[in-house]
């Protein structure tokens, strides 16, 4: 069945006022703050190279400042595997296909 996209009229706008209130508060907080001028990156450094080195824990190889993210890299790896397994498990129940 095809149908054209329609504006969602079953949205509960009263609850949505909470989102508006949150935006007002956040905007108020941000606009008042003073952050100073931006410290940009060195002109001749390669960004992607720097990100790559940071990911595998060799943050000292690049002139850009960074922390090491090796442990986080490994953990996210495991999380992604777990997510795939979970999604497949959930989809398989009640006689789902292999």
């Amino acid at each position: 069945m095809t149908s054209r996209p329609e504006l969602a009229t079953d949205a509960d706008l009263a609850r949505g006022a909470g989102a508006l209130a949150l935006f007002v508060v956040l905007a108020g907080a941000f606009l008042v703050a003073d952050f100073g001028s931006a410290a940009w990156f060195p002109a001749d450094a390669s960004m992607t190279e720097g990100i790559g080195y940071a990911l595998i824990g060799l943050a000292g190889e690049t002139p850009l400042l960074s922390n090491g993210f090796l442990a986080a890299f490994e953990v996210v790896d495991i999380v992604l595997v777990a997510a795939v397994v979970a999604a497949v498990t959930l989809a398989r129940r009640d006689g789902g296909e292999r």
Partner: protein
Amino acid sequence: MAGSLVTAIPLVPFAAFLVALLVGHYAPRALPRGGALPGIAATAISLVLSVWAFLTVGAGGATISRVWTWVPAATDSFALTFGVLVDPLSALMVVIVSGVSLLVHVFSLGYMNDEGETGLPRYYAGLGLFTASMLAFALASNLLQAFVFFELVGFCSWWLIGHWFREEGPASAAKKAFLVTRFGDYFLLVGLVGVLGTFGTAAFAGAESFPALAHAALEGEASVNTFGVDPATWFTTLGLLILGGVIGKSAQFPLQTWLPDAMEGPTPVSALIHAATMVAAGVYLVARLYGFYALTPTVLTVIALVGGFTALFAATMALVKREIKQVLAYSTISQYGYIMLGLGSGGYVAGVFHLLTHATFKALLFLGAGAVIIAMHHDEDMWKMGGLKERMPTVYWAFLSGSLALAGIVPFAGFWSKDAVLHHALTVGLGGQPLVLVAYLMGLVAVAFTGFYTFRMVFLTFHGEPRSETARNADTASANMRVPVAILGVLAAVVGLVNVDPLKGVVGERLLFLERWLNGPLPGIAGATAEHYHELVVDVAGFHGATVSPVVSAVVSLVFALAGVALAWTWYHVPEPVEKTDALGPAKTILYNNYYQDEFQTWLATGVTEPLANAVDVFDASVVDGVVNGVSSTSLVASDRLRRVQTGVVTTYTTQLVFGLVVLLLIVLLLGGWF
């Protein structure tokens, strides 16, 4: 030594009580004569010990000793103790109590055992406990101890009146006796607490006793806590409160309604408790506290008025009674009125004297009536008796002796003592106390009534022709009933000679034995002599005596008594007497119904107290319970509303989260000074 042997006086009958109760319950066959023999043995031992104590006191050995400390004294507070006070008054009382109790125990062999009554161990246990309590009460050294035993004798009265509890009458009468006396005892308890709070001690005698402290306080030499009220007024209040218990226990107006109904109990019980000893507990308390009462002229006047009024009031009701024990019951109420009149007008010796003689002749009259009742097979109606003089001679002569004493005919006991009371009331009344004079006049009129109803009783019971089959076939009383009656008959004739007040001018003061006894040697117990009380009455209470010759007063009361006797002779000393009560007209109904006092008191309970109690109950259930229930229902309603927050819809929860976050952010930003 002296202390411990004196302590045995109440303990021996208590042991008899335990024996009768326990052996009678667990091994009834092992109990000889249903518990009578242990009781007789115990009261005999008590009598011997009492006489020994009496003689010791006479030789100058009066003592106060502490036996047991109930509540030890804390800092800033006083101790509650139990002790023994042996002085002339208490020694006299224990002799009277143990003597009458012994005679009643012997009489009960004939009244209860020989008639095949059941429940004898219960009966003798009750008599034993009563004797023990009354003796302990007489020997009490302070008001708290006296109160404890006061209540205990009240309990024994309930127990013994309700001996035949399976019938409705005795059970109800027992309850009535207990409740009416309890009502008075409530005031006594309040007074006791007041005394303890004011003086810090409730001791009767000695330098540290509260009468001594009260006297010192009135003289300004000591200070006691009178709660901001003038001392004289406060002591009057305490005296009146204690008087409440006295009025209840001694069956004075308005708490006299229980005594006639108490005649539902066995006659030996009536003789012991409701004639000679328990009702004496009230007036004994007044005598014991005389050092305190002598300081308060208002209370003394109240005592005298109550006594005089009760004497007249009860005597009028005794005029129309048909049952022999009822006449004697009203006579008891009336005679205790005389004792109160004597004590209230400042005549300590006179009051105690009448107490002594009354115990003798009233116990005699009740025991004699008991013998008659047994002969008439428990029919008490005097109009069915008659002619018993020939069939029961011993009982008749003893009864006559007692009746002459009661009516106050010279030289029998009642004449000397009643005349002492009336003379004292007359002198004080003429000496500037008009209310006491009014009480004297009431007492004087009652003398005539007393003579009349006493001899109406004698003539209807013993003289004339027998008016029923039972009277015709009446047997003479058995030996164990005749012996106590005979002993008391002799005593009633002679005991008055211990204090021949009217003949003082002739024979000198040496022969006023009772007065000398009550003044007796008291090393260590100052302030408990009759002389000291007399001083207090004259100096502190202001009761001065006018000079009236005792002989004149004696002759006046004797004339009144003889007038009453003469009228009774005319109407009833005939072979076939008839009822004359209709001549009273409308007064007859009122007197028959005891001035409707019973109905009035029942109305007070059901018509006044019960609705009030119901109203208070409604208040309690609706207001007090309402508040408590309201607290819980607030919590219940609030939680019922609050739980609807959990709707189960996810978006509701996230909405709540977001709104909460907004609020938190605002708070943190504003307080942190971000803006």
